[in-house]
Protein backbone atom coordinates (compact mmCIF):
# COMPACT_ATOMS: atom_id res chain seq x y z
CA UNK A 1 0.00 0.00 0.00
CA UNK A 2 2.79 2.40 0.92
CA UNK A 3 4.62 1.82 -2.36
CA UNK A 4 1.38 2.43 -4.16
CA UNK A 5 0.76 5.70 -2.30
CA UNK A 6 4.26 6.92 -3.06
CA UNK A 7 3.97 5.99 -6.74
CA UNK A 8 0.55 7.58 -7.00
CA UNK A 9 1.76 10.76 -5.30
CA UNK A 10 4.69 10.89 -7.69
CA UNK A 11 2.33 10.63 -10.64
CA UNK A 12 0.15 13.41 -9.22
CA UNK A 13 3.14 15.71 -8.78
CA UNK A 14 4.43 14.81 -12.24
CA UNK A 15 1.08 15.76 -13.76
CA UNK A 16 1.09 19.13 -12.01
CA UNK A 17 4.64 19.86 -13.16
CA UNK A 18 3.65 18.78 -16.68
CA UNK A 19 0.68 21.15 -16.69
CA UNK A 20 2.86 24.02 -15.46
CA UNK A 21 5.46 23.40 -18.13
CA UNK A 22 2.76 22.94 -20.77
CA UNK A 23 1.26 26.31 -19.88
CA UNK A 24 4.62 27.93 -20.56
CA UNK A 25 5.27 25.99 -23.75
CA UNK A 26 1.73 26.59 -25.00
CA UNK A 27 2.44 30.31 -25.31
CA UNK A 28 5.34 29.50 -27.63
CA UNK A 29 3.52 26.86 -29.65
CA UNK A 30 0.28 28.64 -30.25
CA UNK A 31 0.36 31.41 -32.85
CA UNK A 32 -1.22 33.89 -30.42
CA UNK A 33 0.79 36.05 -28.07
CA UNK A 34 -0.42 37.20 -24.63
CA UNK A 35 1.13 40.64 -25.10
CA UNK A 36 -0.65 41.12 -28.43
CA UNK A 37 -3.82 39.67 -26.91
CA UNK A 38 -3.72 42.27 -24.13
CA UNK A 39 -2.78 45.20 -26.35
CA UNK A 40 -4.86 44.43 -29.40
CA UNK A 41 -3.89 44.39 -33.07
CA UNK A 42 -2.75 47.98 -33.43
CA UNK A 43 -0.01 47.97 -30.78
CA UNK A 44 3.45 49.19 -31.76
CA UNK A 45 6.29 46.65 -31.71
CA UNK A 46 7.98 48.67 -28.93
CA UNK A 47 4.94 48.40 -26.71
CA UNK A 48 4.58 44.69 -27.39
CA UNK A 49 8.24 44.14 -26.52
CA UNK A 50 7.74 46.07 -23.29
CA UNK A 51 4.68 44.04 -22.25
CA UNK A 52 6.46 40.83 -23.18
CA UNK A 53 9.32 41.86 -20.91
CA UNK A 54 6.90 42.67 -18.08
CA UNK A 55 5.27 39.25 -18.45
CA UNK A 56 8.68 37.58 -18.55
CA UNK A 57 7.99 36.20 -22.02
CA UNK A 58 11.33 37.39 -23.43
CA UNK A 59 13.28 34.88 -21.39
CA UNK A 60 14.06 31.31 -22.44
CA UNK A 61 11.40 28.63 -22.05
CA UNK A 62 13.17 26.61 -19.33
CA UNK A 63 13.81 29.84 -17.45
CA UNK A 64 10.13 30.80 -17.64
CA UNK A 65 9.01 27.32 -16.63
CA UNK A 66 11.33 27.35 -13.63
CA UNK A 67 10.18 30.85 -12.64
CA UNK A 68 6.50 29.94 -12.83
CA UNK A 69 7.03 26.64 -11.06
CA UNK A 70 9.19 27.96 -8.22
CA UNK A 71 6.86 30.89 -7.62
CA UNK A 72 3.78 28.68 -7.75
CA UNK A 73 5.25 26.37 -5.12
CA UNK A 74 5.64 29.38 -2.83
CA UNK A 75 2.03 30.35 -3.44
CA UNK A 76 2.77 33.15 -5.87
CA UNK A 77 0.87 32.71 -9.12
CA UNK A 78 1.90 36.03 -10.66
CA UNK A 79 0.08 39.34 -10.94
CA UNK A 80 -3.12 40.23 -12.72
CA UNK A 81 -1.76 42.17 -15.68
CA UNK A 82 -4.59 44.69 -15.78
CA UNK A 83 -5.01 45.52 -12.09
CA UNK A 84 -1.50 44.73 -10.88
CA UNK A 85 -2.92 42.78 -7.94
CA UNK A 86 -1.42 39.39 -7.06
CA UNK A 87 -3.62 36.72 -8.69
CA UNK A 88 -3.77 34.72 -5.46
CA UNK A 89 -5.53 37.53 -3.62
CA UNK A 90 -8.17 37.67 -6.37
CA UNK A 91 -8.54 33.91 -6.33
CA UNK A 92 -8.87 33.59 -2.56
CA UNK A 93 -12.54 34.38 -1.98
CA UNK A 94 -13.70 32.91 -5.30
CA UNK A 95 -11.95 29.66 -4.52
CA UNK A 96 -14.10 29.16 -1.42
CA UNK A 97 -17.33 29.74 -3.36
CA UNK A 98 -16.34 27.34 -6.11
CA UNK A 99 -15.13 24.70 -3.67
CA UNK A 100 -18.39 24.86 -1.71
CA UNK A 101 -20.42 24.58 -4.91
CA UNK A 102 -18.35 21.63 -6.13
CA UNK A 103 -18.66 19.79 -2.85
CA UNK A 104 -22.40 20.48 -2.59
CA UNK A 105 -22.99 19.21 -6.13
CA UNK A 106 -21.00 16.02 -5.59
CA UNK A 107 -22.83 15.28 -2.34
CA UNK A 108 -26.21 16.04 -3.92
CA UNK A 109 -25.40 13.81 -6.89
CA UNK A 110 -24.51 10.87 -4.64
CA UNK A 111 -27.36 11.37 -2.17
CA UNK A 112 -30.03 11.24 -4.88
CA UNK A 113 -28.39 9.06 -7.55
CA UNK A 114 -27.45 6.06 -5.42
CA UNK A 115 -30.85 5.59 -3.72
CA UNK A 116 -32.54 5.96 -7.12
CA UNK A 117 -30.43 3.10 -8.43
CA UNK A 118 -31.21 0.94 -5.41
CA UNK A 119 -34.94 1.56 -5.81
CA UNK A 120 -34.77 0.77 -9.52
CA UNK A 121 -32.90 -2.48 -8.88
CA UNK A 122 -35.45 -3.48 -6.28
CA UNK A 123 -37.97 -4.49 -8.94
CA UNK A 124 -36.30 -4.61 -12.34
CA UNK A 125 -38.85 -4.16 -15.08
CA UNK A 126 -41.36 -2.72 -12.64
CA UNK A 127 -43.13 0.62 -12.82
CA UNK A 128 -40.56 2.54 -10.76
CA UNK A 129 -37.72 1.04 -12.77
CA UNK A 130 -39.37 1.99 -16.06
CA UNK A 131 -40.00 5.57 -14.91
CA UNK A 132 -36.43 6.02 -13.63
CA UNK A 133 -35.11 4.58 -16.88
CA UNK A 134 -37.20 6.89 -19.07
CA UNK A 135 -36.43 9.99 -17.00
CA UNK A 136 -32.74 9.16 -16.98
CA UNK A 137 -32.54 9.24 -20.80
CA UNK A 138 -33.80 12.83 -20.75
CA UNK A 139 -31.58 13.87 -17.85
CA UNK A 140 -28.50 12.30 -19.42
CA UNK A 141 -29.13 14.39 -22.52
CA UNK A 142 -29.00 17.71 -20.70
CA UNK A 143 -25.63 19.44 -20.37
CA UNK A 144 -25.18 21.47 -17.17
CA UNK A 145 -25.78 24.78 -18.90
CA UNK A 146 -29.13 23.60 -20.24
CA UNK A 147 -30.24 22.47 -16.78
CA UNK A 148 -29.02 25.75 -15.31
CA UNK A 149 -30.91 27.79 -17.94
CA UNK A 150 -34.10 25.82 -17.35
CA UNK A 151 -33.81 26.31 -13.59
CA UNK A 152 -33.13 29.99 -14.16
CA UNK A 153 -36.21 30.25 -16.38
CA UNK A 154 -38.31 28.55 -13.79
CA UNK A 155 -37.07 30.22 -10.62
CA UNK A 156 -35.81 33.62 -11.69
CA UNK A 157 -38.41 34.41 -14.34
CA UNK A 158 -41.56 32.52 -13.36
CA UNK A 159 -41.50 32.29 -9.59
CA UNK A 160 -39.14 33.33 -6.85
CA UNK A 161 -39.20 30.46 -4.38
CA UNK A 162 -35.43 30.15 -4.38
CA UNK A 163 -32.85 32.86 -5.05
CA UNK A 164 -31.40 32.31 -8.50
CA UNK A 165 -28.73 34.99 -8.69
CA UNK A 166 -25.53 35.59 -6.74
CA UNK A 167 -24.01 33.47 -3.99
CA UNK A 168 -25.41 35.11 -0.87
CA UNK A 169 -23.31 35.92 2.14
CA UNK A 170 -21.22 33.34 3.96
CA UNK A 171 -21.88 35.10 7.28
CA UNK A 172 -25.58 34.24 6.90
CA UNK A 173 -25.52 30.46 6.47
CA UNK A 174 -29.25 30.12 5.73
CA UNK A 175 -29.11 32.62 2.92
CA UNK A 176 -25.88 31.14 1.58
CA UNK A 177 -27.37 27.65 1.50
CA UNK A 178 -30.48 28.87 -0.27
CA UNK A 179 -28.31 30.41 -2.97
CA UNK A 180 -26.47 27.13 -3.28
CA UNK A 181 -29.52 24.96 -4.05
CA UNK A 182 -30.14 25.77 -7.73
CA UNK A 183 -26.50 25.77 -8.89
CA UNK A 184 -25.85 22.49 -7.09
CA UNK A 185 -28.93 20.89 -8.65
CA UNK A 186 -27.83 22.07 -12.09
CA UNK A 187 -24.55 20.18 -11.73
CA UNK A 188 -26.01 17.12 -10.01
CA UNK A 189 -28.90 16.30 -12.37
CA UNK A 190 -26.78 14.48 -14.96
CA UNK A 191 -25.26 12.33 -12.24
CA UNK A 192 -28.60 11.46 -10.71
CA UNK A 193 -29.42 9.72 -13.96
CA UNK A 194 -25.94 8.32 -14.51
CA UNK A 195 -25.53 6.97 -10.98
CA UNK A 196 -29.06 5.58 -10.94
CA UNK A 197 -28.27 3.49 -14.03
CA UNK A 198 -24.84 2.48 -12.80
CA UNK A 199 -25.99 1.49 -9.32
CA UNK A 200 -28.98 -0.36 -10.74
CA UNK A 201 -26.79 -2.44 -13.03
CA UNK A 202 -24.16 -3.24 -10.44
CA UNK A 203 -26.80 -3.90 -7.77
CA UNK A 204 -28.49 -6.47 -10.02
CA UNK A 205 -25.13 -8.05 -10.66
CA UNK A 206 -24.30 -8.28 -6.97
CA UNK A 207 -27.79 -9.51 -6.05
CA UNK A 208 -27.27 -12.54 -8.27
CA UNK A 209 -24.08 -13.54 -6.44
CA UNK A 210 -24.09 -16.74 -4.39
CA UNK A 211 -23.26 -14.94 -1.15
CA UNK A 212 -26.39 -12.85 -1.46
CA UNK A 213 -28.41 -16.00 -2.06
CA UNK A 214 -26.88 -17.44 1.08
CA UNK A 215 -27.90 -14.38 3.04
CA UNK A 216 -31.44 -14.81 1.74
CA UNK A 217 -31.39 -18.49 2.58
CA UNK A 218 -30.53 -17.56 6.15
CA UNK A 219 -33.81 -15.68 6.18
CA UNK A 220 -32.51 -12.14 6.36
CA UNK A 221 -35.25 -9.64 5.46
CA UNK A 222 -34.95 -8.19 1.92
CA UNK A 223 -34.13 -4.73 3.26
CA UNK A 224 -31.14 -6.07 5.17
CA UNK A 225 -30.02 -8.15 2.19
CA UNK A 226 -30.08 -5.12 -0.11
CA UNK A 227 -28.69 -2.45 2.18
CA UNK A 228 -26.29 -4.36 4.41
CA UNK A 229 -25.17 -7.36 2.38
CA UNK A 230 -25.23 -6.21 -1.23
CA UNK A 231 -24.90 -2.41 -1.21
CA UNK A 232 -21.22 -2.19 -0.24
CA UNK A 233 -20.10 -4.27 -3.19
CA UNK A 234 -22.61 -2.67 -5.52
CA UNK A 235 -21.05 0.74 -4.82
CA UNK A 236 -17.55 -0.23 -5.97
CA UNK A 237 -18.04 1.06 -9.53
CA UNK A 238 -19.23 4.38 -8.08
CA UNK A 239 -15.92 4.86 -6.27
CA UNK A 240 -14.10 4.27 -9.53
CA UNK A 241 -16.14 7.05 -11.13
CA UNK A 242 -15.48 9.69 -8.48
CA UNK A 243 -12.67 11.23 -10.52
CA UNK A 244 -14.94 11.56 -13.54
CA UNK A 245 -17.72 13.02 -11.40
CA UNK A 246 -15.36 15.63 -9.99
CA UNK A 247 -14.11 16.55 -13.45
CA UNK A 248 -17.63 17.02 -14.75
CA UNK A 249 -18.68 19.14 -11.77
CA UNK A 250 -15.56 21.33 -11.84
CA UNK A 251 -15.95 22.03 -15.54
CA UNK A 252 -19.64 22.65 -14.99
CA UNK A 253 -18.97 25.29 -12.34
CA UNK A 254 -17.78 27.58 -15.14
CA UNK A 255 -21.20 27.50 -16.82
CA UNK A 256 -23.23 27.51 -13.64
CA UNK A 257 -21.36 30.44 -12.11
CA UNK A 258 -21.90 32.48 -15.24
CA UNK A 259 -25.60 31.61 -15.51
CA UNK A 260 -26.45 32.12 -11.84
CA UNK A 261 -24.13 35.12 -11.64
CA UNK A 262 -22.16 33.51 -8.80
CA UNK A 263 -18.72 34.67 -7.83
CA UNK A 264 -16.15 31.90 -8.24
CA UNK A 265 -13.05 30.94 -10.18
CA UNK A 266 -15.17 29.89 -13.15
CA UNK A 267 -16.75 33.29 -13.64
CA UNK A 268 -13.39 34.90 -12.81
CA UNK A 269 -11.81 32.83 -15.58
CA UNK A 270 -14.43 33.89 -18.11
CA UNK A 271 -13.93 37.58 -17.38
CA UNK A 272 -10.16 37.09 -17.53
CA UNK A 273 -10.45 35.40 -20.93
CA UNK A 274 -12.63 38.27 -22.14
CA UNK A 275 -9.90 40.78 -21.23
CA UNK A 276 -7.20 38.34 -22.44
CA UNK A 277 -5.49 38.54 -19.06
CA UNK A 278 -3.11 35.60 -19.55
CA UNK A 279 -1.54 35.54 -16.04
CA UNK A 280 -4.97 35.16 -14.44
CA UNK A 281 -6.12 32.52 -16.95
CA UNK A 282 -2.88 30.60 -16.45
CA UNK A 283 -3.22 30.65 -12.67
CA UNK A 284 -6.85 29.51 -12.78
CA UNK A 285 -6.02 26.62 -15.10
CA UNK A 286 -3.33 25.54 -12.67
CA UNK A 287 -5.87 25.67 -9.82
CA UNK A 288 -8.32 23.55 -11.82
CA UNK A 289 -5.57 21.09 -12.69
CA UNK A 290 -4.60 20.83 -9.03
CA UNK A 291 -8.22 20.15 -8.10
CA UNK A 292 -8.43 17.38 -10.71
CA UNK A 293 -5.20 15.81 -9.61
CA UNK A 294 -6.07 15.89 -5.92
CA UNK A 295 -9.56 14.56 -6.63
CA UNK A 296 -8.20 11.75 -8.78
CA UNK A 297 -5.63 10.93 -6.13
CA UNK A 298 -8.22 10.73 -3.36
CA UNK A 299 -10.55 8.65 -5.54
CA UNK A 300 -7.80 6.16 -6.36
CA UNK A 301 -6.73 5.87 -2.75
CA UNK A 302 -10.32 5.41 -1.60
CA UNK A 303 -10.76 2.70 -4.22
CA UNK A 304 -7.72 0.89 -2.84
CA UNK A 305 -8.91 1.18 0.73
CA UNK A 306 -12.41 -0.06 -0.13
CA UNK A 307 -11.41 -2.92 -2.41
CA UNK A 308 -8.87 -5.18 -0.68
CA UNK A 309 -8.37 -7.21 -3.86
CA UNK A 310 -6.54 -4.29 -5.44
CA UNK A 311 -4.13 -4.03 -2.53
CA UNK A 312 -2.84 -7.52 -3.25
CA UNK A 313 -1.60 -6.48 -6.67
CA UNK A 314 0.68 -3.85 -5.26
CA UNK A 315 3.56 -2.63 -7.31
CA UNK A 316 2.05 -3.77 -10.56
CA UNK A 317 -0.33 -1.92 -12.75
CA UNK A 318 0.04 1.47 -11.14
CA UNK A 319 0.07 3.25 -14.44
CA UNK A 320 -2.22 0.91 -16.31
Amino acid at each position, binding site marked *: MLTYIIKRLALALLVLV*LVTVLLVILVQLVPGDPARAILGNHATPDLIAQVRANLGLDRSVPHQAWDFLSHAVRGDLGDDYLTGQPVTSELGASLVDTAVLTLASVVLALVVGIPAGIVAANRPGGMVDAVIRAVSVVL*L*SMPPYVVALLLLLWFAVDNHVLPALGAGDLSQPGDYLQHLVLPAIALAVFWWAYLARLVRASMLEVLSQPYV*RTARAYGLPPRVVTLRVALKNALMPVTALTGLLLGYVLAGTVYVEVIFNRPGIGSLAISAVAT*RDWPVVRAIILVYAAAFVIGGLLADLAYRVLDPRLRLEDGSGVFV
Partner: protein
Amino acid sequence: MAVVQPSAVGGVPAAAIAAPERRWRDLLRQVMGRPSAAAAVVVVLLLVAAALLAPVLTPYDPTHIDVFARLQGPSIRHWLGTDSLGRDNLTRTLYGTRVALVIAVPSVVGAFVVGGVLGLLGGYLGGWLDRVLVVVFDALVSFPSVILGLALLTLLGPSVASVILVIATALVPYYGRLVRAQTLAEREVGYARTERALGASRTRVLLRHLVPNVVPTLLTVVAMDVPGAVVDAAGLAFLGLGVQAPTPDWGVMLNDGFTNIAGSPWGVVGPILALVVMTSAFLVLGESVRAVLDPRGPAPRRSRQWTFRKASR
Protein backbone atom coordinates in the same frame (compact mmCIF):
# COMPACT_ATOMS: atom_id res chain seq x y z
CA MET B 1 1.50 -13.59 -49.72
CA ALA B 2 1.57 -15.95 -46.79
CA VAL B 3 1.04 -19.63 -47.53
CA VAL B 4 -1.54 -20.06 -44.82
CA GLN B 5 -4.44 -17.67 -44.91
CA PRO B 6 -3.97 -15.96 -41.55
CA SER B 7 -7.67 -15.32 -41.14
CA ALA B 8 -8.38 -19.05 -41.07
CA VAL B 9 -5.86 -19.79 -38.32
CA GLY B 10 -6.11 -19.58 -34.57
CA GLY B 11 -9.01 -19.51 -32.23
CA VAL B 12 -10.80 -16.66 -33.93
CA PRO B 13 -14.08 -17.60 -35.57
CA ALA B 14 -13.93 -16.68 -39.23
CA ALA B 15 -17.11 -14.64 -38.88
CA ALA B 16 -15.40 -12.24 -36.49
CA ILE B 17 -12.95 -11.20 -39.16
CA ALA B 18 -15.25 -11.62 -42.13
CA ALA B 19 -15.52 -8.95 -44.77
CA PRO B 20 -16.19 -5.62 -43.06
CA GLU B 21 -19.24 -4.90 -45.25
CA ARG B 22 -20.95 -8.05 -43.98
CA ARG B 23 -20.32 -7.02 -40.40
CA TRP B 24 -21.69 -3.55 -40.99
CA ARG B 25 -24.82 -4.89 -42.62
CA ASP B 26 -25.39 -7.39 -39.82
CA LEU B 27 -24.92 -4.71 -37.21
CA LEU B 28 -27.30 -2.37 -38.99
CA ARG B 29 -29.94 -5.09 -39.32
CA GLN B 30 -29.72 -6.05 -35.67
CA VAL B 31 -29.79 -2.46 -34.44
CA MET B 32 -32.73 -1.52 -36.66
CA GLY B 33 -34.62 -4.50 -35.29
CA ARG B 34 -35.00 -2.65 -32.00
CA PRO B 35 -37.87 -0.13 -32.12
CA SER B 36 -36.19 2.46 -29.89
CA ALA B 37 -33.01 2.32 -31.96
CA ALA B 38 -34.94 2.60 -35.21
CA ALA B 39 -36.69 5.70 -33.86
CA ALA B 40 -33.33 7.15 -32.85
CA VAL B 41 -31.93 6.56 -36.33
CA VAL B 42 -34.93 8.38 -37.80
CA VAL B 43 -34.30 11.34 -35.46
CA VAL B 44 -30.62 11.48 -36.40
CA LEU B 45 -31.52 11.36 -40.12
CA LEU B 46 -34.06 14.14 -39.59
CA LEU B 47 -31.36 16.26 -37.95
CA VAL B 48 -29.02 15.71 -40.87
CA ALA B 49 -31.87 16.55 -43.22
CA ALA B 50 -32.53 19.74 -41.26
CA ALA B 51 -28.89 20.68 -41.65
CA LEU B 52 -28.89 20.04 -45.38
CA LEU B 53 -32.33 21.43 -46.20
CA ALA B 54 -32.40 24.42 -43.85
CA PRO B 55 -32.77 26.99 -46.67
CA VAL B 56 -35.71 25.05 -48.15
CA LEU B 57 -37.47 24.49 -44.85
CA THR B 58 -37.67 28.10 -43.77
CA PRO B 59 -38.49 31.30 -45.61
CA TYR B 60 -36.26 33.42 -43.35
CA ASP B 61 -32.60 34.32 -43.48
CA PRO B 62 -30.91 33.23 -40.19
CA THR B 63 -29.06 36.53 -39.91
CA HIS B 64 -31.78 38.85 -41.18
CA ILE B 65 -32.32 41.56 -38.57
CA ASP B 66 -35.79 42.96 -37.96
CA VAL B 67 -35.64 45.16 -34.88
CA PHE B 68 -39.36 45.88 -34.97
CA ALA B 69 -40.09 42.21 -34.34
CA ARG B 70 -37.60 41.65 -31.52
CA LEU B 71 -38.14 39.24 -28.61
CA GLN B 72 -41.55 38.05 -29.80
CA GLY B 73 -43.27 34.95 -28.47
CA PRO B 74 -44.40 32.12 -30.74
CA SER B 75 -46.78 33.04 -33.54
CA ILE B 76 -47.84 31.77 -36.95
CA ARG B 77 -45.06 33.79 -38.54
CA HIS B 78 -42.38 32.82 -36.00
CA TRP B 79 -43.09 29.41 -34.50
CA LEU B 80 -40.44 29.75 -31.80
CA GLY B 81 -40.53 33.53 -31.54
CA THR B 82 -37.71 35.92 -32.37
CA ASP B 83 -34.45 36.86 -30.69
CA SER B 84 -33.13 40.20 -29.45
CA LEU B 85 -32.54 41.41 -33.02
CA GLY B 86 -35.80 40.08 -34.42
CA ARG B 87 -34.24 37.05 -36.11
CA ASP B 88 -36.44 33.96 -36.38
CA ASN B 89 -35.51 31.45 -33.65
CA LEU B 90 -36.68 28.36 -35.52
CA THR B 91 -34.69 29.33 -38.60
CA ARG B 92 -31.58 29.87 -36.52
CA THR B 93 -32.08 26.56 -34.76
CA LEU B 94 -32.33 24.74 -38.11
CA TYR B 95 -29.23 26.44 -39.48
CA GLY B 96 -27.55 25.78 -36.13
CA THR B 97 -27.64 22.05 -36.93
CA ARG B 98 -25.21 22.80 -39.77
CA VAL B 99 -22.78 24.70 -37.56
CA ALA B 100 -23.03 22.01 -34.90
CA LEU B 101 -22.17 19.20 -37.31
CA VAL B 102 -19.51 21.20 -39.14
CA ILE B 103 -17.70 21.62 -35.82
CA ALA B 104 -18.43 18.28 -34.16
CA VAL B 105 -17.70 15.84 -36.99
CA PRO B 106 -14.21 17.15 -37.88
CA SER B 107 -13.22 17.37 -34.20
CA VAL B 108 -14.29 13.82 -33.45
CA VAL B 109 -12.78 12.40 -36.65
CA GLY B 110 -9.56 14.36 -36.22
CA ALA B 111 -9.22 13.30 -32.60
CA PHE B 112 -9.84 9.68 -33.57
CA VAL B 113 -7.18 9.77 -36.26
CA VAL B 114 -4.55 11.33 -33.98
CA GLY B 115 -5.50 9.33 -30.89
CA GLY B 116 -5.85 6.17 -32.97
CA VAL B 117 -2.38 6.45 -34.51
CA LEU B 118 -0.81 7.14 -31.10
CA GLY B 119 -2.77 4.32 -29.47
CA LEU B 120 -1.88 1.81 -32.21
CA LEU B 121 1.80 2.70 -32.05
CA GLY B 122 1.91 2.64 -28.26
CA GLY B 123 -0.08 -0.56 -27.96
CA TYR B 124 1.76 -2.43 -30.70
CA LEU B 125 5.32 -1.25 -30.23
CA GLY B 126 5.30 -0.96 -26.44
CA GLY B 127 8.51 0.26 -24.85
CA TRP B 128 9.23 3.78 -23.70
CA LEU B 129 6.87 5.33 -26.26
CA ASP B 130 4.00 3.36 -24.77
CA ARG B 131 4.92 4.27 -21.23
CA VAL B 132 5.17 7.99 -21.98
CA LEU B 133 1.87 7.93 -23.89
CA VAL B 134 0.09 6.14 -21.06
CA VAL B 135 1.23 8.66 -18.46
CA VAL B 136 0.30 11.61 -20.68
CA PHE B 137 -3.08 10.09 -21.61
CA ASP B 138 -3.81 9.30 -17.96
CA ALA B 139 -2.92 12.82 -16.96
CA LEU B 140 -5.12 14.42 -19.60
CA VAL B 141 -8.02 12.03 -19.92
CA SER B 142 -10.44 13.67 -17.54
CA PHE B 143 -9.31 17.20 -18.29
CA PRO B 144 -12.49 18.80 -19.60
CA SER B 145 -12.50 20.73 -22.84
CA VAL B 146 -13.87 23.87 -21.19
CA ILE B 147 -10.78 24.30 -19.06
CA LEU B 148 -8.50 23.46 -21.95
CA GLY B 149 -10.53 25.87 -24.03
CA LEU B 150 -9.89 28.69 -21.57
CA ALA B 151 -6.15 28.43 -22.19
CA LEU B 152 -6.16 27.87 -25.95
CA LEU B 153 -8.90 30.35 -26.73
CA THR B 154 -7.27 33.13 -24.70
CA LEU B 155 -4.18 32.81 -26.84
CA LEU B 156 -5.75 31.88 -30.20
CA GLY B 157 -8.83 34.03 -30.06
CA PRO B 158 -12.24 32.45 -30.65
CA SER B 159 -12.99 30.99 -34.08
CA VAL B 160 -14.46 27.83 -35.58
CA ALA B 161 -10.96 26.42 -36.13
CA SER B 162 -9.90 27.05 -32.52
CA VAL B 163 -13.05 25.38 -31.21
CA ILE B 164 -12.41 22.30 -33.37
CA LEU B 165 -8.82 22.23 -32.11
CA VAL B 166 -9.91 22.50 -28.47
CA ILE B 167 -12.54 19.77 -28.66
CA ALA B 168 -10.31 17.45 -30.67
CA THR B 169 -7.42 17.93 -28.22
CA ALA B 170 -9.66 17.04 -25.30
CA LEU B 171 -10.77 13.84 -27.05
CA VAL B 172 -7.34 12.61 -28.20
CA PRO B 173 -6.21 11.01 -24.91
CA TYR B 174 -9.55 9.27 -24.57
CA TYR B 175 -9.33 7.67 -28.02
CA GLY B 176 -5.64 6.98 -27.53
CA ARG B 177 -6.42 4.88 -24.48
CA LEU B 178 -9.31 3.13 -26.18
CA VAL B 179 -7.32 2.17 -29.29
CA ARG B 180 -4.29 1.18 -27.23
CA ALA B 181 -6.34 -1.20 -25.09
CA GLN B 182 -7.93 -2.75 -28.20
CA THR B 183 -4.56 -3.10 -29.89
CA LEU B 184 -3.07 -4.80 -26.84
CA ALA B 185 -5.96 -7.27 -26.89
CA GLU B 186 -5.80 -7.94 -30.65
CA ARG B 187 -2.01 -8.18 -30.73
CA GLU B 188 -1.99 -11.52 -28.96
CA VAL B 189 -4.90 -13.04 -30.87
CA GLY B 190 -3.96 -16.06 -33.01
CA TYR B 191 -3.97 -14.45 -36.45
CA ALA B 192 -1.64 -11.62 -35.46
CA ARG B 193 0.85 -13.98 -33.83
CA THR B 194 0.67 -16.37 -36.77
CA GLU B 195 1.31 -13.61 -39.24
CA ARG B 196 4.35 -12.51 -37.24
CA ALA B 197 5.61 -16.08 -36.98
CA LEU B 198 5.30 -16.31 -40.76
CA GLY B 199 7.77 -13.49 -40.96
CA ALA B 200 5.53 -10.53 -41.67
CA SER B 201 6.99 -7.15 -40.78
CA ARG B 202 5.60 -5.12 -37.91
CA THR B 203 4.24 -2.58 -40.34
CA ARG B 204 2.39 -5.25 -42.27
CA VAL B 205 0.80 -6.77 -39.17
CA LEU B 206 -0.12 -3.33 -37.95
CA LEU B 207 -1.63 -2.03 -41.16
CA ARG B 208 -3.06 -5.19 -42.75
CA HIS B 209 -4.40 -6.88 -39.64
CA LEU B 210 -4.62 -4.74 -36.55
CA VAL B 211 -6.03 -1.58 -38.11
CA PRO B 212 -8.89 -3.33 -39.96
CA ASN B 213 -9.79 -5.25 -36.83
CA VAL B 214 -9.49 -2.46 -34.29
CA VAL B 215 -10.90 0.50 -36.17
CA PRO B 216 -14.42 -0.59 -37.29
CA THR B 217 -15.56 -1.64 -33.82
CA LEU B 218 -14.35 1.60 -32.34
CA LEU B 219 -15.92 3.73 -35.07
CA THR B 220 -19.33 2.96 -33.63
CA VAL B 221 -18.13 4.15 -30.23
CA VAL B 222 -16.65 7.26 -31.79
CA ALA B 223 -19.80 8.12 -33.70
CA MET B 224 -21.62 8.30 -30.38
CA ASP B 225 -19.29 11.09 -29.26
CA VAL B 226 -20.62 13.52 -31.86
CA PRO B 227 -23.36 14.92 -29.58
CA GLY B 228 -20.79 15.36 -26.80
CA ALA B 229 -18.68 17.45 -29.14
CA VAL B 230 -21.75 19.46 -30.16
CA VAL B 231 -22.58 20.07 -26.50
CA ASP B 232 -19.04 21.23 -25.77
CA ALA B 233 -18.95 23.50 -28.81
CA ALA B 234 -22.31 25.03 -27.89
CA GLY B 235 -21.09 25.48 -24.31
CA LEU B 236 -17.97 27.32 -25.42
CA ALA B 237 -20.02 29.49 -27.76
CA PHE B 238 -22.46 30.19 -24.92
CA LEU B 239 -19.57 31.46 -22.80
CA GLY B 240 -18.50 33.68 -25.69
CA LEU B 241 -15.36 31.59 -26.23
CA GLY B 242 -16.42 29.71 -29.34
CA VAL B 243 -18.31 30.53 -32.49
CA GLN B 244 -19.19 34.21 -32.48
CA ALA B 245 -22.42 36.02 -33.28
CA PRO B 246 -24.08 36.45 -35.74
CA THR B 247 -23.42 32.83 -36.79
CA PRO B 248 -26.61 30.83 -36.17
CA ASP B 249 -25.06 28.49 -33.61
CA TRP B 250 -26.96 26.87 -30.75
CA GLY B 251 -24.49 28.21 -28.19
CA VAL B 252 -24.67 31.72 -29.62
CA MET B 253 -28.46 31.48 -29.51
CA LEU B 254 -28.36 30.30 -25.89
CA ASN B 255 -26.19 33.27 -25.04
CA ASP B 256 -28.58 35.71 -26.70
CA GLY B 257 -31.57 34.02 -25.06
CA PHE B 258 -29.83 34.04 -21.67
CA THR B 259 -28.96 37.74 -21.90
CA ASN B 260 -32.56 38.59 -22.75
CA ILE B 261 -34.21 35.92 -20.65
CA ALA B 262 -36.22 38.47 -18.70
CA GLY B 263 -37.59 39.94 -21.95
CA SER B 264 -38.52 36.67 -23.65
CA PRO B 265 -37.83 33.11 -22.50
CA TRP B 266 -38.27 31.81 -26.07
CA GLY B 267 -34.72 32.49 -27.16
CA VAL B 268 -33.35 29.45 -25.34
CA VAL B 269 -36.14 27.01 -26.23
CA GLY B 270 -34.99 26.10 -29.76
CA PRO B 271 -31.36 25.28 -29.00
CA ILE B 272 -32.25 23.48 -25.75
CA LEU B 273 -34.75 21.25 -27.57
CA ALA B 274 -32.28 20.63 -30.38
CA LEU B 275 -29.46 19.71 -27.99
CA VAL B 276 -31.61 17.42 -25.87
CA VAL B 277 -33.26 15.68 -28.84
CA MET B 278 -29.95 15.10 -30.58
CA THR B 279 -28.15 13.84 -27.48
CA SER B 280 -30.94 11.50 -26.42
CA ALA B 281 -31.24 10.05 -29.94
CA PHE B 282 -27.53 9.24 -29.97
CA LEU B 283 -27.78 7.92 -26.41
CA VAL B 284 -30.54 5.46 -27.29
CA LEU B 285 -28.75 4.46 -30.49
CA GLY B 286 -25.45 3.98 -28.67
CA GLU B 287 -27.09 1.76 -26.10
CA SER B 288 -28.56 -0.48 -28.78
CA VAL B 289 -25.27 -0.70 -30.66
CA ARG B 290 -23.48 -1.65 -27.47
CA ALA B 291 -26.12 -4.26 -26.63
CA VAL B 292 -25.77 -5.79 -30.10
CA LEU B 293 -21.97 -5.74 -30.01
CA ASP B 294 -21.77 -7.10 -26.46
CA PRO B 295 -20.10 -10.50 -26.82
CA ARG B 296 -22.00 -11.83 -23.82
CA GLY B 297 -25.15 -11.53 -25.86
CA PRO B 298 -28.43 -10.08 -24.66
CA ALA B 299 -28.53 -10.55 -20.90
CA PRO B 300 -31.56 -12.53 -19.74
CA ARG B 301 -31.71 -10.11 -16.84
CA ARG B 302 -35.37 -10.08 -16.08
CA SER B 303 -35.97 -13.82 -16.01
CA ARG B 304 -32.86 -14.45 -13.93
CA GLN B 305 -33.87 -11.87 -11.41
CA TRP B 306 -37.35 -13.24 -11.27
CA THR B 307 -36.19 -16.76 -10.40
CA PHE B 308 -34.03 -15.35 -7.67
CA ARG B 309 -36.85 -13.42 -6.14
CA LYS B 310 -38.93 -16.51 -6.20
CA ALA B 311 -36.14 -18.47 -4.59
CA SER B 312 -35.82 -15.98 -1.79
CA ARG B 313 -39.39 -16.34 -0.69
